[in-house]
């Protein structure tokens, strides 16, 4: 585009109210949490549909439970997604806004399919609960909607990483494109690498499910063992597939990004390998390894999220765009307001989750 510094001129002149690195950190942290729940939604829906069409009674029962849990996970995924969406607009505003405007209608399609998908999941859950067997269609609608939404949000993120192409996308034709129907950047390897972990985390979730319920007296231990075994196998094989897809994607990344030498991706690969090893070992007694697998999976996702941020910075290097030199006007009052609320909020959430955790195990007298 001639002027490599144009991104700086697009930054908001109001600046940021605190150190940019704090927004970056919050963005990474909340995105990691968000993507874990997105994984559970996508994977949970797939397993719930699978269970729905299964001949085994324990799978059908599992399908009902997963349908219910997935409705909860959808809401949590949406709310957790708000935070990274907010923070990315603070430090990467020129990228996010440009990409969104170019694909304006697709952002609306994204919202529409999410609403349809989430409501379909509720229909799937409530019909199954009511004993209606012809509910599978709604599960299938949900998964289709989720995949469309994933593709759109992936394309929006990728478009944001290619500022050098924006001008061509807008002014490339005979007329200026103001239609909002452009969807220009889809990288299959990266998209699959986001989707494949859905089954890894859902598999580990099933192991945790078995671990959680085996403490209750009124459960069928055989069924729980079947669930744990299914979860372990699913997680193990999906982790292998994820690793292979990741490798394939890495090989196709432009060399100019020097991403193969990035220490965060090395850490991510190391953690993935440890997770695969632990999942292999968990074959002996899946539910006993559930917490360990959950821990390593969380760490892997977290480090991979840092690595995703590192990749974004590599993409923006040719434009001399660094969030660390974003103009700043520190506002202590509002910063303290957030931090204090955040700490108090964590306390309240822990209190509520503890109640739910104990109630689910039947440890409260009604």
């Amino acid at each position, binding site marked *: 585009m*001639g*002027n490599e510094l*144009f*991104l700086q001129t*697009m930054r*908001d002149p*109001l*600046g*940021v*109210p*605190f150190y940019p690195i704090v927004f970056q950190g919050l963005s990474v942290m909340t995105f990691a949490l968000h993507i874990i729940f997105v994984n559970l939604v996508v994977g949970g829906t797939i397993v719930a549909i699978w269970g729905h069409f299964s001949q085994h009674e324990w799978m059908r029962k599992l399908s009902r439970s997963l349908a219910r849990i997935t409705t909860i996970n959808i*809401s*949590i995924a*949406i*709310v*957790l*997604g*708000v*935070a990274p*969406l*907010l*923070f990315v*607009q603070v430090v990467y505003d020129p990228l996010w*806004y*440009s990409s*969104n*405007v*170019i694909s304006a209608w697709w*952002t*609306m399609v*994204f*919202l529409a399919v*999410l609403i349809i998908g*989430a*409501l379909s999941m*509720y229909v799937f859950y409530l019909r199954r609960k009511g004993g209606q067997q012809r509910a599978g269609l709604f599960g299938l609608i949900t998964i289709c909607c989720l995949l469309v939404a994933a593709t759109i949000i992936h394309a929006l993120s990728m478009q944001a990483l290619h500022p050098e192409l*924006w*001008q061509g996308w*807008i*002014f490339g034709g005979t007329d*200026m494109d*103001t239609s*909002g129907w452009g969807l220009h950047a889809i990288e299959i390897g990266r998209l699959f690498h986001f989707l494949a972990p859905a089954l890894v985390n859902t598999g580990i979730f099933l192991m945790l499910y078995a671990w959680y319920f085996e403490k209750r007296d009124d459960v069928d231990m055989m069924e729980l063992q079947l669930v744990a075994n299914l979860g372990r196998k699913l997680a193990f094989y999906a982790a292998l597939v994820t690793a292979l897809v990741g490798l394939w994607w890495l090989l196709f990344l432009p060399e100019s990004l020097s991403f193969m030498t990035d220490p965060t991706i090395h850490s991510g690969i190391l953690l993935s390998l440890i997770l695969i090893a632990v999942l292999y070992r968990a074959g002996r007694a899946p539910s006993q390894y559930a917490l360990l697998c959950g821990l390593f999976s969380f760490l892997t996702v977290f480090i991979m999220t840092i690595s995703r941020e590192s990749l974004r910075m590599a993409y923006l290097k040719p434009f001399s765009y660094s969030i660390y030199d974003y103009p700043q*006007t520190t*506002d202590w*009052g509002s*910063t303290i*307001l*957030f931090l204090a*609320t*955040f700490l108090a*909020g964590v306390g*309240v*959430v822990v209190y*509520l989750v503890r*109640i*739910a955790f104990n*109630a689910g195990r039947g440890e*409260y007298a*009604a």
Partner: protein
Amino acid sequence: MYPIFEIPVVGGPILMAAIATFHILPSHLATGAFWMTYFIERKAIQEDRPELLEFLKKFSLSILIFCFVTGSLTGVGIWFAATVISPRAISGLIHTYVWGWATEWVFFVIEIVAIYVYYYTFGKIAPKLHLRIGFIYAVAAWLSMVIITGILGFMMTPGKWLATGGFFDGFFNPTYWPQLCFRTAMMFAIAGTYAAVIAGAMKNGGRDTIRKISGRWGLGGLAAAGLFAFWYYHSLPTNAMENLQSIAYVEIMYKLAIVIAVVMAIYFFLLAIGQGRFVNVWVGSLMMVVLLAGVVGGESTREFVRRPYLIPGYMYSNQIIGHDFDARSISSEVERFNSKGLLASHPLVPTDLKAITEENYLKTGEILVKVECLACHTLEAGGRNSLADILDGIDAESAYYLLEDLERTYMPPFAGAGPERRAAANYLAVVAGGETGTADWVVAGE
């Protein structure tokens, strides 16, 4: 400056308004419903009425689906719509209020966890503990309103922020308290309307009790909202009052809101005195639609009276920074564009379109009109606030003088150097089907 998104005929603001208006229902319901829930659950425990708990189970499940699927997603939808329609405006808000939104997000997280724990622990934990969870939800939800109202009020009356740039100076702005009180009252009215729908779907049990409670809460909320609306009205700035009186559409919307308030008051009164047997799920839903129409009236009024600004005193409707903002050392873009040219200053305009020439004057004119006018207008005849209709048959020269005079109306001034104004005027003549200027006239003024 960002790319442009154009919605032919309908216009971008309608997309924004459609999502934002709908969002009012689930968002206010999410904040108001659990105060009512808390009241009903306490009554159920004290009077040992399990049928009321059955209502609450249905009520909270429906809130879960309505508010935490459609409500959450339309909330995100407002962001997305604002992003694609007015990216610079939402950016300005976010860069000023990011910690406010982040604080609100913490309350969202508490809400979502609390409502799921509440719903799934019905009958599984001690009643008092369950009641406490409902209370935690109600407080967190209302606090999210306390936060967002500061940002909404700021968009109408930024107050001292214009002088200091401080977060709280804009947050506690002149319309903050009346708006917070108004929204707090309205959340009870919306919760009452919604509870009547769910009660209408019940076959027996506490249906009549719930209808009466709905009516009382609804009527109380609406009456209080009326008083606070009066306070709000009198705290509006002068330009907003002028808009209210001079723009016909705003006046119609304002009157619509008042008429619907009266209809809703009668409805709530009938429910409150036990004459609501006619209210089944269909009648209740119809009244929700009527209420939504009232919200459309109120929200349209709120949106329009701040014209020609998105952030009064700072950013015009077309996202151009209209005034110097000394607190952050920001200069007016109008003056910069008038001297250096808008096209030359736009980071995404290709080099061959930065200066107006005989070859590109039509294309550059189109870019200028789209950048400066699409925020409020459409180009097509028959479209919403259509330039083709408003300027019907105007010639390029007249359009040029019109652009010079925009400031006298409730519109932003045209920002651009000499030939840019002529290029825009020429394109307006094309749109309006009037006599266009020659290439020489556009480029050199001859």
